[in-house]
């Protein structure tokens, strides 16, 4: 496997690297799950969580992942976007460099910010979500979760439903699934499909009911209610009717199929409460798996590709 230098986009990975993350996460899952324990694997390493956009859930997940590996974590958050007034993005990067951190986990509302940061910094950059662009650890935890339920993903059919246009999750997800040989169908209001989406190598379907009987996974994207105001769709009621998954649509799925969501959910819009709480939904599991996958990523970025549980006490 080519060593992992940064983790900015799924596009930069080859299948062996994706599998290395998933296999490492599999080894680490018992530790991710273990409430008060940790392994000394990254002792002495300093991980900086640079959160230029608020996301408590993702930050906590990275925080836990680093701490379970015994890394030190410093949190650097800046409200707003272009860091704080008077300090440029570049200056922030140079400050982090001067502080001698070993890895920067960066979350930004601006597409491309992690790649830009990687040009200023020598240490590994881990993208925790940038604009509409990428959220690679989300995609990796999702394929990890799928693999645990379905086995090998080659030939499996994943239906991604919702606002693909504004979704960094969708962009990363589609690339990860394609790398592993899965088939992807997008179902979305046409106003929320990216231009030239055909170049992604996916199928696009107009109607959810038609594709559900053939799906192994239904992946629901979060709908932002404010999209209504820019005329992407008329009302959340209409969205729920046409693109939401309820009990009736759940029943159209094959027995083994699972329902996923990156959270936080809008119950009653993209997913009904019944479906969210059904045993077909693996949404809570995704959260735990997220810690294991982020541990795996930090581990692979910071200490090469040896046995991740080595030295565990």
């Amino acid at each position, binding site marked *: 496997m080519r060593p992992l230098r940064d983790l900015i986009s799924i596009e930069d990975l080859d299948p062996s690297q994706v599998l290395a993350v998933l296999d490492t996460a599999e080894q680490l899952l018992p530790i991710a799950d273990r409430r008060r324990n940790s392994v000394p694997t990254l002792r002495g390493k300093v991980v900086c969580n640079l959160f230029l956009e608020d996301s408590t859930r993702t930050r906590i997940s990275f925080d836990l992942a680093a701490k379970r590996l015994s890394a030190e974590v410093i949190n650097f958050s800046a409200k707003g976007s*272009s860091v704080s007034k008077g300090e*440029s*993005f570049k200056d922030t990067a140079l400050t982090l460099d001067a502080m001698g951190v070993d890895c920067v986990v960066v979350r*930004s509302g601006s*597409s*491309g910010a992690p790649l830009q940061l990687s040009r200023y910094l020598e240490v590994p950059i881990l993208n925790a979500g940038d*604009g509409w*662009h990428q959220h690679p650890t989300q995609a990796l935890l999702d394929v990890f979760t799928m693999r645990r339920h379905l086995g090998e993903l080659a030939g499996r059919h994943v239906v991604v439903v919702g606002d693909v246009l504004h979704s960094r999750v969708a962009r990363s997800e589609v690339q990860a699934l394609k790398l592993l040989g899965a088939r992807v169908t997008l179902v979305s209001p046409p106003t929320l499909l990216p231009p030239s989406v055909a*170049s992604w190598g996916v199928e696009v379907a107009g109607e959810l009911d038609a594709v559900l009987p053939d799906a192994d996974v239904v992946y629901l994207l979060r709908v932002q209610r404010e999209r209504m105001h820019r005329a992407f769709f008329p009302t959340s009621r209409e969205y729920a009717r046409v693109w939401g998954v309820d009990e009736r649509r759940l029943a159209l799925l094959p027995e083994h199929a699972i329902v996923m969501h990156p959270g936080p959910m809008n119950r009653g819009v993209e997913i009904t409460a019944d479906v969210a709480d059904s045993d077909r939904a693996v949404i809570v599991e995704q959260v735990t798996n997220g810690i294991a996958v982020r541990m795996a990523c930090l581990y692979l970025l910071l200490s090469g590709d040896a046995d991740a549980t080595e030295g565990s006490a």
Partner: protein
Amino acid sequence: MSDSTILLRGGRVLDPASGTDAVLDVLVRDGRVEAVGEQLAADDAEVVDCAGRWVTPGFVDLHTHLREPGFEDAEDVASGSAAGAAGGYTALCPMANTDPVCDAAAVAESVWRRGNEVGLADVFPVGAITKGLRGEQLAEFGELHDSAARVDFFSDDGKPVADSLVMRRALQYASAFDVVICNHSEDPDLTAGAQMNEGEASSVLGLPGWPHEAEEIMIARDLILAAGVGARLHVPHVSTAGAVELIRAAKARGVRVTAEVTPHHLSLQDHLIRSYDPVLKVNPPLRTEADVQALRTALADGTIDCVATDHAPHAPELKDQEWEHAPCGMLGLETAFAVVHTELVATGLMDPLTAIARFTTGPAGVRDVGAHGGALTPGADANLAVLDPAQRWTVDGRALRSKARNTPFHGAELVGRPVHTLLRGRFTLRDGKVQA
């Protein structure tokens, strides 16, 4: 003084106004062209060997941002004029989006005067169409036109005149003075939040798209309005294949329209934005290969009248930001000829005389720029450029004369470069060095 009589010997004279393309001497005396011909002699002249070089009228840039007044940390009239001289330009038209905005005679005159003081290029300010570029109340065209700066070209560049009624009135009012209206072609509703061309690349990069329709709708509207009132419309920085078609059809119908294209839209494409390097962020955005091809064809066949740089310097700290927050704009003056030569002339798409026309007679035909871009005939002001079409050079952004460094061509190898520039017979660029 040594500058007063100069014999440019043995260059390939490319003079679009007269259609001349021949190896000739050009004798310059007291700031004017004295003679163009074979084997000219003048005992008192300084002889400049131009063998293998092109001798052309000085270039005219209809679309420059000199940033003075207000943003002198990025550029000022002196540094911008130096960049112009280095690029073969003798005439520059700085846009009105300064601070204060060039919507009053005092501002236009101060910029014009500063250009004269610096003396590296003649500066012809562009007046704002509307007060403060707010798109509401018309600027005083009459006052600007009568000022010492003789403003006959108006643009709210950077901002479209979105209100159709205001635009119609601007065109109607402009026809009283027969001045030109140049509207930034962008439907602002369609580009709210836009960050790059909408297409395959934006879809992968997760940047909000800037649809080509936004440019074309505005051009279509303006063409209809200009035709209706018989006014003169200039379309700046055309960037899409659809826009080219609209302009071509309007010209065929006899609409009084002219158009320009930038070197970067002729050479760069949106997929380069994969790097998220804000140096590539520009308005209108870099488009697709099909657009680039259409623009090249249109420039070659004259549908697009001229090359204009949209030279837009920005201080480094503004470009060292996330893509989304970085301002639009890139440098252009010093690389314009080299880019067009490398991409369109060296590749056989345009012959040298046509290419030079797009830098000289083309822009000079759009607005009054005095004795620039015209014929190299006896008695004409000696505003000249001497270009080395064979010179290979690697662009070094830090070595450019602009105060800013935001050139997308940093590190690029280009062929062709201005060697000398003369403004009224005086070297402003000599052997590649600006004569401050």
